[in-house]
């Protein structure tokens, strides 16, 4: 009893300075390694899985309130939605007849030309879990991950078109870089004339830029940009953005167009991840891991 009760005259263990040195060195080493290579990915995934129940627990009140609000407004929402849908149905009726006619015609032509039919894309619906607090990048975290078949590189869409691209996946969550993130680029095509271009996340927040245009490019404000399908990741024909302005710079001989995305990642909670085949895109994934890390 007496021995255990003796007063310790000297501090045991390493000094505070030594601890600081070791821990700070470890932190800087982690920063450098995580910034350059993806060897820490398993550790991050393990921590993320451990974090997930706590994140869900803390966000549960918010989800409950949203659920309650949805339930409360369900009647009025259904009514207004019904009216909108009715109006839309009338508007779409003639278009659909026209489209059906075109589809049959197209099918016939395809058969004549022996072009393979387009396959329909399998997809997974995801819900926004939270938005990481980050000054530089526009990312969102979703509530489904590799256990639902999501992989880095898969495109994310809403009813307006392309929203972004999955850049990092853990078993239960996935992280997407939005279209407006300045590290994302998408091969696009002008709907009006089929011109192939590349759209980049803009320097102006909430905008998309089309760069490296020749000064005489046939692009006018109001043009719609759709995915061209080149590169293999984004399926062709999804709408991306509408062109706002085209700035022609006579000094360099190049033009730069600014466009507004047609999707609205800030408005909704639910999105669709298209399960495209990304297994063969090793080179691209390498680039994506850079997107995930540089975006911080």
């Amino acid at each position, binding site marked *: 009893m007496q021995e255990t009760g003796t007063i310790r005259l000297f501090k045991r263990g390493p000094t505070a300075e030594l601890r600081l040195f070791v821990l700070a060195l470890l932190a800087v080493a982690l920063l450098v390694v995580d910034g350059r290579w993806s060897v820490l990915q398993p550790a991050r995934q393990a921590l993320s899985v451990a*974090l997930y129940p706590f994140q869900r627990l803390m966000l549960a009140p918010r989800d409950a309130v949203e659920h309650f609000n949805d339930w409360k407004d369900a009647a009025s929402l259904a009514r207004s939605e019904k009216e909108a849908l009715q109006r839309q149905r009338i508007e779409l009726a003639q278009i659909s007849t026209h489209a059906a006619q075109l589809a049959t015609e197209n099918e016939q032509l395809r058969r004549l030309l022996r072009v393979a039919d387009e396959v329909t894309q399998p997809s997974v619906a995801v819900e926004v879990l939270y938005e990481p607090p*980050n000054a530089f990048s526009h990312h969102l975290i979703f509530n489904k991950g590799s256990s639902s078949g999501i992989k880095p590189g898969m495109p994310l869409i809403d009813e307006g078109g392309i929203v972004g691209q999955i850049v*990092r996946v853990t078993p239960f969550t996935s992280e997407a870089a939005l279209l407006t993130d300045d590290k994302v680029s998408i091969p696009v095509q002008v709907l009006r004339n089929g011109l192939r271009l590349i759209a980049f996340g803009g320097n102006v927040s909430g905008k998309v830029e089309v760069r490296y245009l020749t000064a005489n490019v046939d692009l006018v404000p109001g043009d719609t940009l759709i995915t061209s399908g080149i590169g293999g990741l984004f399926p062709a024909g999804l709408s991306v953005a509408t062109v706002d302005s085209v700035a022609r710079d006579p000094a360099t001989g190049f033009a730069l167009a600014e466009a507004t995305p047609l999707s609205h990642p800030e408005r909704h909670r639910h999105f669709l991840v298209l399960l495209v085949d990304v297994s063969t895109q090793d080179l691209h994934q390498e680039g994506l891991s850079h997107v995930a890390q540089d975006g911080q």
Partner: protein
Amino acid sequence: MLRKMDNSTRAPATRRTASSLSSLEPIDASPFKRPSSGLFIWFTIVLTWLISLLPWRLWQPAPDLLLLVIAFWCLNEPQRVSMVTAFIFGLLMDVHDSTLLGGHALVYTLAAYGAVALQPRLRHFNSVIQAIHMLPVFVLADSIGRLLYAWTAGEWAGWQWLWSPVFMAVLWPLVDILLHMPQRRLDDGDAGAV
């Protein structure tokens, strides 16, 4: 364990002498010597960590409550909460914010070291003086973190974050009142008994 036994043996002794010698006793003899319970310390840290998972930190000048609480315990209970705790919780925040691993960990470790280094001097001061001393610690730790962040991202995030350490220093006395509340209540109880 040892400390607890000390308390239990001392308590009846003071009560016995209180009747005759209470006038000789200094008014504030024991209150701040009694350590906070380990359970309470970890409860407050985990609670603030859980609160930090909520989206209010999207606002850049928001104070980092988790760092504030960890630094507070590093200053007041250096035996229980150390730089290693700060480092581990920093890593957890890095994963939650999906930033580079080690960013928050470094800032938390630096701030915790500041608190540990200032501990012998600040222990006996009141919370306002402590807050004034901790302000430069928070600013320094945060700015080192921001510099590394700017280096890895290739961009400077502006100056808005400087409000964050200021808010943390302003909140320090409040945190002091809140986290020392269990002890204060005990002291009041003692005073009433005497």
